[in-house]
């Protein structure tokens, strides 16, 4: 199809086109940049919120405290009962003795507590079940079952409310980011497409004579279209480069602070969402898709081959 000489000439002509309408090309690239930065920012916000949500969600469970001295067999029966429910993901059992040992280990450096514990003749801590469900929505229902009359005689206390308010709020934020974000990105994407479409159309108009002569002397169709496509790709490359520069401080300074705040134990950079190069690559793909779509339509409408 195209040999390397023609390919280089197409790129060169694309660059010339870019340079001939320098300000217009610059404006087209900046509109594209705005779109990319908005996209990246919303994407990061989404990723951060999502990550926070996951982190918090993983800490949610229902803690069932049994009455002191309840037989282990009895607890096992209840555990098996609950396990039958398809909504339940996992149940872990902490026996009274285990709980007592754990408490002792945790406070072994505190002489006052150690001393008080030694004076005890009986284990004051209850046996506990920690229940996790598959879905967040299922916690109230499962908690209700555990609080029902059926288990009233065995269960002392059921505790689960703690993080649900935060989670619901995060969920709302997430939904907002997705709907609002997608809308905003769509609007800017359309603006970018239109601006590039106009710029390419103008280039086609400016090069009408050249195109006509190229056709007459037998330039191939791809050779004629090539420079316009190259011009669109140049807008994308410039936009991605500028976006990359703008987003770099966000990655090197701001995100580490937020992630440390949310969960210092997790290595956020290990995650693809927070990988700078990965994001840049996504931006490049987005930019190329936008510019190619608009160039394609401009060529189809105005370039007579």
């Amino acid at each position, binding site marked *: 199809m195209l*040999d390397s*000489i*023609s390919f280089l*000439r197409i790129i060169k002509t694309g660059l010339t086109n870019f340079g001939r309408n320098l300000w217009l090309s610059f404006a087209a690239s900046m509109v594209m940049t705005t779109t990319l930065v908005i996209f990246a920012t919303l994407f990061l916000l989404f990723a951060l919120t999502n990550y926070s949500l996951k982190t918090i969600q993983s800490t949610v469970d229902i803690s069932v405290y049994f009455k002191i001295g309840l037989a282990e067999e009895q607890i096992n029966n209840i555990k098996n009962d609950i396990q039958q429910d398809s909504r339940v993901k996992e149940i872990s059992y902490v026996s009274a003795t285990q709980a007592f040992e754990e408490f002792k280990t945790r406070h072994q450096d505190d002489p006052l507590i150690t001393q008080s514990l030694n004076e005890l003749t009986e284990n004051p801590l209850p046996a506990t079940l920690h229940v996790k469900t598959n879905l967040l929505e299922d916690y109230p229902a499962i908690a209700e079952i555990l609080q029902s009359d059926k288990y009233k005689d065995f269960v002392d206390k059921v505790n689960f409310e703690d993080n649900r308010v935060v989670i619901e709020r995060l969920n709302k934020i997430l939904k907002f980011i997705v709907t609002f974000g997608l809308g905003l990105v769509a609007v800017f994407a359309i603006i970018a497409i239109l601006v590039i479409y106009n710029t390419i159309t103008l280039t086609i108009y400016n090069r009408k*004579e*050249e195109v*006509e*002569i*190229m*056709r*007459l*002397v*037998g*330039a*191939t*169709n791809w*050779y*004629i279209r090539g420079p316009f496509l190259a011009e669109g790709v140049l807008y994308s490359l410039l936009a991605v480069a500028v976006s990359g520069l703008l987003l770099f401080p966000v990655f090197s300074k701001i995100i580490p602070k937020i992630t440390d705040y949310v969960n210092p134990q997790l290595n956020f950079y290990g995650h693809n969402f927070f990988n700078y190069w990965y994001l840049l690559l996504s931006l490049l793909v987005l930019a190329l898709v936008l510019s190619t779509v608009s160039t394609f339509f401009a060529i189809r409408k105005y370039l007579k081959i």
Partner: protein
Amino acid sequence: MIKFQNVTKTYNHHNALSGINLDVRHGEFISLVGLSGAGKTTLFKLIIGEERIDGGQILIDDVDITQVKKSDLPYLRRKIGMVFQDIKLLPKRTAYENIAFAMEVCGHRIDKIHKEVPKILELVGLMHKKDSFPHEMSGGEKQRVAIARALSHRPVLLLADEPTGNLDEVNAAEVLDLLMKINKLGTTVILATHDAGLVNKVKKRVITIEAGKITLEQEKGKYKL
């Protein structure tokens, strides 16, 4: 070389060409004579595949051009040079660059371009104008650059559509001399014109076309309308 067999071309129910039968032989010089709108340009457009015929058949070296794929048309056009009344040179490029451009866009290597362009300029007698821009040249010179450009792919056929239409007598004669010289070197030339003086000077095969039909064919003919 080119065979038209009962060719018909219609624009909006109006017959631009009808029942055209024509046989162009290798190395011929044909004057295609007719008033504006008679169908000369349409005939040329059919040969280079810019328009498609509505009936009949056109064979170029036994290839049916209605069967040529759109993506292969550029390669057909490289075998056929074409010049126009309005010349169509790029105003911001010199004579040399205008010819080089045609070779560039068809993928010729730069060293080949540097070797060929001076030869072609020499052929059309414009080596001394190689660095002149179109606005610095006379009409005849510009048309000769356009002919040089058309020759850059060493075409087997040169179509000249009213090449002297905008030129005075002296310039027109220059262009005609060049076309005849090119023909002598082996390229088939079809010259479309309604300039009687020009046709009578050539004294070669004349085909007269009126309202889309061939009305007269003469070997070594004269302009008659």
